[in-house]
């Protein structure tokens, strides 16, 4: 029996789909931030070491959206190490995150962020 993809997509609850996603990072020390791939992101601002604002090209309905993220740093020295990705401040059009090790901002070669919500 053939599967009709368009039917499957239409049956999917829109809230199950990511509204925003981005893959970015500071590829190596001494380089600027690179956005490798993104969706519904107009830009990403680096405010400080491990401090980034994701500027959305859409407007979320409220601040109850869910941001999930992961990251890795020290890919050259240690293969890959994880730092905490924490939402810092959220508006309906921006999401500022911190990537920390302990209490210290940690520059990351790759930060992956996904946002779900209304």
């Amino acid at each position, binding site marked *: 029996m053939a599967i009709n993809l368009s039917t499957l997509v239409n049956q999917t609850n829109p809230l199950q789909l990511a509204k925003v996603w981005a893959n970015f990072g500071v590829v190596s020390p001494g380089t600027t931030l690179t*956005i490798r791939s993104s969706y519904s992101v*107009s*830009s990403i*601002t680096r405010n*400080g070491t491990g401090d980034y604002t994701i500027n959305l*090209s859409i407007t979320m309905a409220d601040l109850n959206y869910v941001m999930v993220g992961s990251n890795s740093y020290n890919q050259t020295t240690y293969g890959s190490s994880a730092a905490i990705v924490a939402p810092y401040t959220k508006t309906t059009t921006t999401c500022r995150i911190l990537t920390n090790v302990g209490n210290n901002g940690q520059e990351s070669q790759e930060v992956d962020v996904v946002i779900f919500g209304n």
Partner: protein
Amino acid sequence: MSQVIVYTNSTGNVSVCTPSNESDINQVLIKDCPVGAIIVDSSTLPSGADAQFFNSWELNGSSVSVNFTKAQSQQTSVLNKLVYDESGHRAVKTLSGVSNVISDSDWKILVTNAQFGIATSSTTAELIAAIVPVQAAIDANSAI
């Protein structure tokens, strides 16, 4: 030549805004950045060792450069954090009856040398080099 947007943020540091592939930089300048932000070629931003002191960058006119006094302070904070964390680690090893790879007296000399190195540095490369022996000693003491 890729372009980015720079401005001085509320903490006095420089923010660097990178447009996504789906955006036009002039629209991003209006939508995502405060008044006074400017578009620059990314090649004009501090590079090499200077780039590692991002929190010490300053925007003067249309030029971004490192404030060396801030960079020294930044590197002192990095050293202090390393020393604080390693002091705890060394104490735990001592209490556990495990010898530290670097003796206490040598460790103090390394830290003092690093502090002196930071204070007498005249370039960001020297600031980075000043704490390398301390980091190496920490790595050696962490090795199983």
